[in-house]
C-alpha cells in the first residue's frame, strides 16, 4: 500500500514516523519526487535531532506527495497510499493506525497532515509558525509551512510537540526561547469559553462532515463551552492568496533542482538548456510543473503587483481579521476537508482537488496561527494557543 518510501530497521525505542520532506542522515529523503529519488542529505533536520535525543526511534520515511503540494500523497513518485477500500490515506496516518509508530512528524505546506488526521481519525497539531525549527526540511513554501505532529490523541501529540518546540538559531524565523517555552507543558483545559463555528465553510462540506462538526459542538457545549455560528467572507480569501504565495515560493525553492549538482539528471541533453529542461521535465509530476509555471507567472514583472503583492496584502488582512475574531471568540471551528473519505481514483482524476480542499486549511497556513485537526474537524486559535486547542481536541476525542 506504499505506506513508506524508506522503512527503517526495527527499533526498540518508541517510534516516530517522518514524512519524506524531513531530512534524515542514513535514510534517503525524496520529497516524494523522482527528482530526489535516493537523495541522501548530509545533515538531518533539527526536529529529528530533537526526537532522537529525547529517545524516540524513527520508524521510517512515510510516503509523501511531491514536495508536499498535493491533497493527500496522490502525486508521490512512489505511488499513492490507499486503504483496502481504495480510499487515500497518508503514509504517516497509516503507520500510526497500523501500530508501526506512536506519532508522526510531517510538513504542513498545503494542509496535508491536518486533513490526513481528520480522515484517519487521528489528532494533528500544526504549531504556531516559528515554534518548531524548519532547519532540515525540504522547503516548498517557507513563509507558512510548519512541522506538524500527528498521533492517536491530543495527549500523545502534546508529548511529541513539546520535544520539538524550541528556539533554533539555525532558523532565522524561529521565535525566541522564552516564547517557545511558553507553550510547552500541560494541555490547557477550561480556558476557552466561546468557539465560533464558520457556518459558510461548514455548509460547503458534505453532510457526513457537517455531522462531525455537529458532534464536536455537542461535545464542547457539554463541557460548558458556547458555540456560535457565524458567516465569514474573509477567511475563504485565504485559499487563492495562499495558493499564490505557496506556488511562488515553491517555484523558487524547487528551482534549485536543476540536474547540475544532485538529484535526477536526464541522460538526454546536448547543451545546458536541454540539461535543465529535460531533467526537470522528466523528473517532476504534473502538479509540480503546474505549480512552477503558476508560481513563476505570479512573480513576473507584469504580475508581481496585481497578483503576488496583492496576495501578501490579503495575508495581512486575514491576520488582522483573525485577530479581531479572536477578540470575540477563543477559537474557530471549521472542517479540515469537505468529505470524510476520498478514493484514489477521484482525486487523481481531478488535479484541482488539492486547491479546492485548501479552502479549509489555507487560513491557518497563510496566517501562521496554530490549528488542530481532530475527530474529523479542525480548530484554529490565536498565535501560541496551541495547548488550549489541544484541550478542545481532548474534549471532542472523549465524545467521539
Amino acid at each position, binding site marked *: 500500500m506504499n505506506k513508506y518510501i524508506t522503512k527503517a530497521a526495527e527499533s526498540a525505542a518508541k517510534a516516530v514516523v517522518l514524512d519524506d520532506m524531513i*531530512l534524515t542522515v542514513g535514510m534517503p529523503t525524496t520529497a516524494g519526487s523522482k527528482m530526489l529519488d535516493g537523495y541522501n542529505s548530509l545533515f538531518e533536520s533539527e526536529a529529528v535531532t530533537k526526537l532522537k535525543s529525547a529517545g524516540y526511534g524513527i520508524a521510517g520515511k512515510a510516503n509523501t506527495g511531491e514536495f508536499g503540494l498535493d491533497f493527500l500523497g496522490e502525486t508521490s513518485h512512489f505511488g499513492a497510499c490507499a486503504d483496502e477500500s481504495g480510499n487515500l490515506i497518508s503514509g504517516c496516518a497509516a503507520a500510526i493506525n497500523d501500530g508501526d509508530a506512536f506519532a508522526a512528524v510531517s510538513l504542513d505546506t498545503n494542509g496535508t497532515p491536518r486533513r490526513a488526521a481528520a480522515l484517519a481519525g487521528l489528532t494533528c497539531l500544526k504549531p504556531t509558525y516559528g515554534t518548531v525549527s524548519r532547519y532540515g526540511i525540504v522547503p516548498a513554501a517557507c513563509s507558512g509551512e510548519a512541522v506538524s505532529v500527528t498521533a492517536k490523541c491530543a495527549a500523545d501529540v502534546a508529548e511529541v510537540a513539546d520535544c520539538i518546540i524550541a528556539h533554533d538559531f539555525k532558523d*532565522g*524565523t524561529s521565535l525566541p526561547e522564552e516564547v517557545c517555552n511558553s507553550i510547552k507543558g500541560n494541555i490547557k483545559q477550561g480556558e476557552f469559553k466561546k468557539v465560533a463555528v464558520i457556518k459558510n465553510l461548514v455548509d460547503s462540506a458534505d453532510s457526513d462532515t457537517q455531522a462531525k462538526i455537529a458532534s464536536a459542538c455537542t461535545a464542547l457545549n457539554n463541557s460548558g463551552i458556547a458555540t456560535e455560528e457565524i458567516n465569514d467572507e474573509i477567511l475563504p480569501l485565504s485559499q487563492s492568496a495562499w495558493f499564490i504565495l505557496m506556488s511562488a*515560493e515553491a517555484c523558487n525553492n524547487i528551482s534549485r533542482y*536543476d540536474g547540475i549538482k544532485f538529484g535526477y539528471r536526464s541522460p538526454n541533453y546536448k547543451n545546458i538548456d536541454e540539461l535543465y529542461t529535460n531533467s526537470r521535465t522528466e523528473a517532476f509530476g504534473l502538479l509540480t510543473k503546474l505549480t512552477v509555471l503558476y508560481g513563476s507567472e505570479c512573480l*513576473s514583472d507584469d504580475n508581481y503587483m496585481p497578483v503576488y503583492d496583492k496576495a501578501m496584502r490579503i495575508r495581512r488582512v486575514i491576520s488582522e481579521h483573525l485577530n479581531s475574531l479572536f477578540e470575540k471568540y477563543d477559537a474557530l471551528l471549521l472542517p479540515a476537508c469537505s468529505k470524510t473519505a476520498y478514493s484514489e481514483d477521484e482525486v487523481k482524476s481531478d488535479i484541482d482537488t488539492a486547491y479546492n480542499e485548501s479552502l479549509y486549511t489555507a487560513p491557518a497556513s497563510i496566517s501562521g496561527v496554530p490549528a488542530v485537526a481532530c475527530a474529523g474537524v479542525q480548530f484554529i486559535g490565536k498565535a501560541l494557543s496551541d495547548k488550549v486547542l489541544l484541550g478542545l481536541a481532548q474534549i471532542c476525542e472523549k465524545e467521539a
Partner: protein
Amino acid sequence: MKFETVIGLEVHVELATDSKIFCSCSAKYGAEQNESVCPACCGMPGMLPIVNKHVVDLGMTAGMMLNCDINRTTTFDKKSYYYPDLPCSYQTTQWFAPICVNGKVRIETENGEKFIRIKQIHMEEDAGKLVHDDWTDTSLVDFNRTSVPLIEIVSQPDLSSAKEVLAYLERLRNLLRFARVSDCRWEQGSMRCDVNLSVRPEGSDKLGVRTEMKNMNSLSAIERAIEYEVARHIDAIANGTEELVQETRRWDDVKGKSYPMRNKETAGDYRYFPDPNIMPVVIDDEWFDKIKSTLPEFPEIKEKRFIEEYELDEKVASQIASSRAFCDVFEGAYERYPKAVEIANWLISDCSKILNRKKMTADMLSINGASLGELIKLVNEGVVNRAGAAKILDAMFDTDIDPKAYAEENGFIISNDTGKIEEVIKEVVANDMKSVNDYKSGKEKAIMALFGQAMKKLNKNCDPKTLRELLIKYVDSI
C-alpha cells in the same frame, strides 16, 4: 554635431568578511576548488540563511563613506535565474529596501570637482565559477565564491567620460579600502563593474539608446571599452553605420571590440520577491552609532591634517594618506614618539622596502604603530643602531613584539660596557700585531682593520665612537 556621453556604473565589491554571507564557510580568496563549501552554499535543500552581521556592518560603513542615507529597516529578496554557478538558481540580494540610498561621491576632474550621485548600495551574495576542463571537454563548477558577500554600488548616470569613470572608480576604491570595507583588488575579482552607456547630441534632454557592458575587471579595459563604445554610438548616430539597440554587450579586451551577448541570462525577468526566511534587518541607533564611531577620517582630511599638524611635506603626507594601514601605523607611532618626519621616513623607506620584498601591498602593513615609535626612539637614543633596528623591524612584520625586549634577547643593544669592549680590543690586537705595527709605523689606516674586527666581534652592537677612542688609547699604550 557635438555629442555628450552619459555613463552610470554598477560596481560590485566583495566585502572583507571572514565568512560568507549566510553560512560559516570561509570567504578568503585563494582556497582549493570547492574547499570552502557547505550544504548551504551548495544549494542543498533544508539549510536556512542566517545573515552575517559583519556584512551589514560593512554595508553600512560603505554607505556612510559614500554619504548615503541608511535604511534603518533593510530586507533581502530573491532573484531567480538559471545558471550552473548559481546553486539555488536564485541569488539572495536586496531589491525592495536596499541598505543605503541617495549618496554622493566627490571626484576631481579637469574642470574641477564634481559630485557623482549614488542611487543605492545593496548587499548580496556572489556566484560560483565555471571552470572548463579541456581534457574531457566539460564544464565544472567551483562553489568557493558562492555566497561570498558583495555590495553593489549603483551610481546615477552622472559620469560623462572614461576619465571621469576612472576617477570615480579610484575614489570608490580608495574610500572603501580606507574604511576596510573591501580590499578592492581588480585582479582577484573583489572589485568589478558594469558600465551603462549612452550617447546623445550635446544639449539634448533625451537619453540615447543605452548599452551595458558587464563584468569589467580592470581599469585599462574599462577605459578602452568606454572609448570604443562611445565611438561606436557616435558613428551609429552621425553616420548611420548601424541601428543601436538596448542590449548587454561583452567587451573583448584582446580584440578591442564589444559584442552583443545573445545569452538568455540577460533577458531579465528575475522574478524578485522578498525572502521569507530572512526577517527584516533593523538597524537601531546603538548599532548605527557604533558603526558611525568607527568610520575613519576621509583620506584627504587626514592628508591635510598631516601637513598642517605634523608638518609633513605634501608628497610624504599624500603617500601616507593613500593607505589606511600607513595612517594607522603612523598615528600609533606618533602617539608613542612624536617625531612625525622621522616616522614618515621609516614608513616610506624602511617599511615599504620590507613590504616590497614580501610582495605585500601597503594595505597589508600590519605592524603595531606604538612598537614602531618605540623602535625609532631606541635608535635615536643610541640604544640600538640602524643595522639592529632593521632586523627588529623585520621581526615586527612577523609578530607583535616589544622592540626593546626583542633587542635585549637577541643582542641588539649597543654595548656601553667599556670592560667588555676593552676585552675584545685586547683579543683583536693580540691576533693582529701586524696591523698594530703598521699603524705605529705611520700607516694610520691600519687601525681601521682593527676597528672592523672589533666591531664584528661585538656584533656591531657598540657605539662606534667609544670603540674608536678605546682602541686608539690601547694601541698607543702598548
